[in-house]
């Protein structure tokens, strides 16, 4: 008999491990992307530092909204890392990944037609949802950790050093921000089975809340609205300068929890599309 060996990969044991396994190649490329980004900005740092005065003069001339957006001081490693890495680029990258992963989790399988067979196994819908949730969260954590490690390892030879604790605080906020929007995408996808809608709605929400936060920091009338934006909790307490902030962590993690509960309830109740 041409018996095939039993594929004994432990990555085929659960929905969680299988989902991570599906992502292994993509995660490698994303990880390289984060490392490359850190590398590029680290390599610029010595040049920037010697011209810090000019940069700061330039920034001082920018409109207040843009200045708040960059939120850094180019003269110090902390200010530079904040401005170049954490103000826009890494959060956008991580959001793109997490929203895609969240949207794909249920809605991707449903649109691909594989969800019926998966759920014909003796496994509860909520188990599938939880496994998909942890896979998305785990991958977001991995990418955030890679960013942390890259800054620590690559930044040092270029003289780009910050407190490990403060850097950890900034990276934890980055991770939680990604997980929050990933969870929202998971919930929209789980509730509708529509991957495109999950990506669209969640990206739209990210854009709007980002604009609200940015405007709130320069337009006095809008100031109270900043509490509505996840980006406020992500950045406004300046984790790179002040370290961990319990409120930021609680709110950002809370968004994921609320989205997950909504996802579980909606997915449990509805008809799956054929």
């Amino acid at each position: 008999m041409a018996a095939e060996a039993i594929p004994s990969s432990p990555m085929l044991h659960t929905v969680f491990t299988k989902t991570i396994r599906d992502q292994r190649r993509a995660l490698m490329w994303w990880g390289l992307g984060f490392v490359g980004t850190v590398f590029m900005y680290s390599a610029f740092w010595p040049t920037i530092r010697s011209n810090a005065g000019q940069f700061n003069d330039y920034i001082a001339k920018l409109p207040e909204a843009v200045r708040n957006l960059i939120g850094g001081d180019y003269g110090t490693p902390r200010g530079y890392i904040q401005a170049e890495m954490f103000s826009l680029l890494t959060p956008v990258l991580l959001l793109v990944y997490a929203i895609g992963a969240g949207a794909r989790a249920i809605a991707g399988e449903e649109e691909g037609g594989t969800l019926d067979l998966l759920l014909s196994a003796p496994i509860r819908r909520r188990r599938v949802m939880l496994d998909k949730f942890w896979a998305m969260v785990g991958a977001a954590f991995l990418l955030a950790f890679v960013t942390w490690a890259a800054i620590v390892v690559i930044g040092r030879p270029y003289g780009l050093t910050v407190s490990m604790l403060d850097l950890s605080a900034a990276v934890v906020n980055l991770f939680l921000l990604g997980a929050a929007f990933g969870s929202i995408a998971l919930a929209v996808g789980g509730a509708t089975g529509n991957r495109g809608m999950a990506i669209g709605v969640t990206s739209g929400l990210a854009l709007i809340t980002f604009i609200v936060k940015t405007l709130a920091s320069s337009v006095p009338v809008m100031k109270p609205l900043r509490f509505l934006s996840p980006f406020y909790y992500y950045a406004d307490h300046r984790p790179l300068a002040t370290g961990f902030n319990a409120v930021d962590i609680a709110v950002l993690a809370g968004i994921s929890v609320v989205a997950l509960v909504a996802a579980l309830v909606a997915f449990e109740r509805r008809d799956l599309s054929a």
Partner: protein
Amino acid sequence: MADVIVAEGLTKSYGKQRGVIDLAFSVAPGEVFGYLGPNGAGKTTTIRTLLDFIRPTSGRVTVFGLDSRTGSVDIHRRTGYLPGELALYEKMTGAEYLAYFASLRDGVDWAYVGELAERLDLRLGMRIRSLSHGNRQKVGLVQAFMHRPELLVLDEPTSGLDPLVQREFHRLVAQVRGEGRTVFLSSHVMTEVERLCDRVGIIREGRLVTVEDVGDLKARAMRTLDIHFARPVPADAFANLPGVQDVEVQGELVHLTVAGHLDAVVKAAARYEVVDITSHEPNLEEIFLTFYGGDEDDGG
């Protein structure tokens, strides 16, 4: 023993689209139950309700005495399922795919997986992306049979299989039946259901038209015959024969429809020199119209 599947007043409506309406049937243990109907009649809707992918608008269905909604995990543990629109994980090999589902079922006898693959002539090491439609269907079949479930729910199981593999599939079903296990299979092909099943439920436009023994159905089976004679035959040569209708005689060619046994027609034909006889399976719509009467509404 209690029935394996019991549907009571099972209704699923989707707004404008037709679902299924007030279905009532039961499937006994050890039975091969055919669920016959044209595409779009509601076969897949019934099956997906049975497995709790969709929920009834009213009525209920129980499997192994368990409610389809509250008992779904236990039902799934004891059931093997082949979907009508099979979609697999393209990047995996057949073996990886089956290992994943085996894990989700807390392990299966891998030797039996190898045996099933061999019987269906399926190479497990190939990536699913590179498999033909028929070979994918085989992966789906192995997946449905590999944990030796008490109940098999198969939605159009032979679509895309070549005739040799179909025959092996028929043997598998016979074997499952011989072991006292139960099969619920849907089809839009009358002959397949006749060959495999003990009883048949016929569904049309969301309603169960009838449930009957395959023997009874066969006794009334309709066939269209084209008989080619060496010389023209009299126009009334096949008139007034039992079970014969729609007779058209055009010189040496005769076209007619027979319900049940062919005996009378063959004997009538034998009076002349026969060159050729061709028999056609009528399509399901024709069977419905003849046996169960047409539907007044125009939705077809």
